[in-house]
């Protein structure tokens, strides 16, 4: 009996060790290029490790049962008439409940740190009127800051392109340029069907919906060129609906901005 328990503990520790090793050493994610990305990857690692422990454990249990309890040729009759075990069943109700509750609270914390729980309607400089309601998005700006320092961009999506309007420079670009480490605040609206704005390296995505503006705030942390991908089926050329986001040093950005800037029209 003691021997059996030693084996069980040994196997469980091996499953844990293996899961932690894989979880900490195997990277399945693309580069991290926004302040959201490391937060996301922290959550991913935790979920990955818990998932591996459960998956490897269950797989071992099934395959072990198939070998250990397989019917030998000479055997007849049935297995033990065990119809249940209440304490065991309570254990495997309570432990998963605790794990799920932990994951839920932890991911709330992660979502809050990403800015997901921030009020959406009071922090956008671009808001044309106070009556317009923003339904959805991710906002990293708290109320007190009122987004004065944000770079505001208006995004419009259509079949099959993104357009980025820089209101301060009074120009529209097909490429999104932003300075590194600058909070960017985007208000997005679609001209036709539903699209989505996704930058895998930033770990953020938000649908762009006709008739309902959404917002998406982010802060890039690494210079480079990353793809902007439409992630919602929008028609035959959906797979080709791409744009680029170019994260560059402040000076490079200013140079690009001043080159494209148009004088204000006097109407």
């Amino acid at each position, binding site marked *: 009996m003691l021997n059996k328990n030693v084996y069980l503990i040994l196997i469980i520790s091996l499953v844990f060790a293996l899961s932690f090793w894989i979880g900490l050493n195997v990277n*399945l994610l*693309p580069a991290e290029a926004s302040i959201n990305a490391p937060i*996301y990857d922290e*959550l*991913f690692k935790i*979920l990955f490790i818990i998932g591996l422990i459960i998956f490897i454990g*269950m*797989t071992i*249990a*099934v395959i072990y*049962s*198939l070998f250990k*309890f397989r*019917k030998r040729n000479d055997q007849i*009759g*049935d*297995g*033990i*008439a*065990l119809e*249940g*075990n209440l304490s*065991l*069943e309570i254990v*495997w109700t309570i432990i*998963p*409940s605790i794990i*799920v509750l932990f*994951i*839920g609270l932890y*991911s709330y914390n*992660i*979502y809050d740190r*990403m800015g*997901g*729980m921030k009020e*959406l309607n009071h922090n956008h400089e671009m808001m044309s009127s106070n009556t317009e309601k923003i339904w*959805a998005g991710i906002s990293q700006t708290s109320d007190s800051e009122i987004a004065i320092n944000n770079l505001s961009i208006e995004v419009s999506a259509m079949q099959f392109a993104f357009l980025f309007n820089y209101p301060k420079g009074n120009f529209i670009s097909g490429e999104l340029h932003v300075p590194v480490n600058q909070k960017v605040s985007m208000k997005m609206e679609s001209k*036709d*069907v*539903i699209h*989505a704005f996704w930058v*895998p390296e930033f*770990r*953020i*995505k938000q*649908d762009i*919906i006709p*008739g*309902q503006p959404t917002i998406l705030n982010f802060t890039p942390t690494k210079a480079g060129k990353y*793809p902007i*991908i439409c*992630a*919602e*089926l*929008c028609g*035959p050329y*959906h*797979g*080709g609906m791409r744009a680029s986001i170019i994260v560059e040093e402040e000076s490079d950005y200013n140079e690009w901005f001043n080159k494209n800037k148009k004088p204000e029209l006097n109407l």
Partner: protein
Amino acid sequence: MTISIDPQKTSNESLQPKGWLRYFSFSLDHKVIGIQYLVCGFLFYLIGGTLASAIRIELASPMSDFMPRDVYNQVLTLHGTIMIFLWIVPVVNGAFGNYLIPFYVGARDMAFPRLNAVAFWLIPPSGLMLVASYFVEGAAQAGWTAYPPLSITTPQSGQIIWILSVLLLGGSSIFGGINFIATIIKLRRPGLKLMQLPMYCWAMLGTSLLVVLSTPVLAGTLILLSFDIIAHTGFFNPVLGGNVVVYQHLFWFYSHPAVYIMVLPAFGLVSEILPVHARKPLFGYTTMVFSIMGIVVLGLVVWAHHMFTSGTPPWMRLFFTIATAFIAVPTGIKFFNWVATLWGGKISINSAMLFSCGFIINFVFGGITGVALAQVPFDIHVHDTYFVVAHFHYIVYGGTVFIIFSSIYHWFPKVTGKMLNEKLGILHFFITFIGFNLCFAPQHWLGLNGMPRRVAEYDPQFQLVNQISSLGALLMAISTIPFLINVFLSVRNGKDAGDNPWNALTPEWLTSSPPPVENWEGEAPLVEEPYGYGKEISEQK
């Protein structure tokens, strides 16, 4: 309380065809209807599988070069619609439900045999209509979710035929659901208590409640969508002041429970198969029943987890995260109980057992990615990517379709009186299991690294992994060959099965194979312990 319906007494009995022609008739026999569902569903599975192969051929190269882009969108729309509405839902509910439920409750037929036949005969015409819409002006191309405004702006005839077809299939599903509820509650033989029913009855009771509660919402939504398309109303059309997000809420109010409509019956079937081949009672019957009902209740309040990146406010995103994650608890109980059923048994390693164990492993994997996807911050990155495609194929293919095959190996002797060939069956299992995992496991990585779903073209750096996935799809296509050979050979020349080849205790085995029209020659047996393996009653058999 119980009403006995005798199909022999139907007025036009002499006009009913005999032999194989029965399967092409408006038969009222629940066993004939069950087989009609199964064979019809399998034919649509072959069509849906052909479409899946076309998708994987297109995705074997990064360019859109195999078929025109709009045809590609039609193919993925038809693939999803056919696999869900014409293969999985009709087969796990209609086929096995019709065949088994009357046996399990000790009845001679379903509560409403004519409604039952109507429910089946709605399926072939609506399925054929859906497939034929390709030849009109092109089939629907807005995905099986048919989100407006895309579904309003794409060619109308395909979308309208799609709506009509899904409405008919939904109607068929509701008829079936009402029939199952009535049969399980009202047709139980005297003396048979609810808590003595085989687990599949509980699974079908829960599933049918979901069908009856949520399918009408889909029907209403699609009717409004068709008004937007034909009559230019503005329910979901933003140009006319409509709200596109409302459609998503209504659509997922049905279509998330639809996932449980596809997996709960599979949970029931595997609960019948494992105890028989492990020679052990089903572990934790009562907790299994409560888990099913828990999944039914929770399943109705989780729909918005499909909309975390859509127009949903933060509080809503959070509520649906918690509700969704908690479904893992009753589901987990069921999986632990199944492993505990295997533990200490005398397990026969045969095709039915292997497919059931493959189901457990695949579904645990899909369940884990499901809990991860339930977390808003996690989902925001991978929503609408290949990660999601991989996840739900692990649930509906690795889960439900594996159980459909397991069930075919398990009940084929009862239906035909012949055994299936075990060697071909085990070959079928290994090709399917390897092909399936090769096809879908790599797609998780694709999604995490930037490949959205429903695209005909992708970045060249994803080519190798996509080709591995396509190779897996090829194996899955090949895996149907040994299965079909096995079925055709065994129907003709299979080993005689006898009445009860597995020494099972559930009531369908306590009659001849194939069973007579009235199910039992005499009185229906009273089975108080359908899982009494290892006890004295199993010794007398």
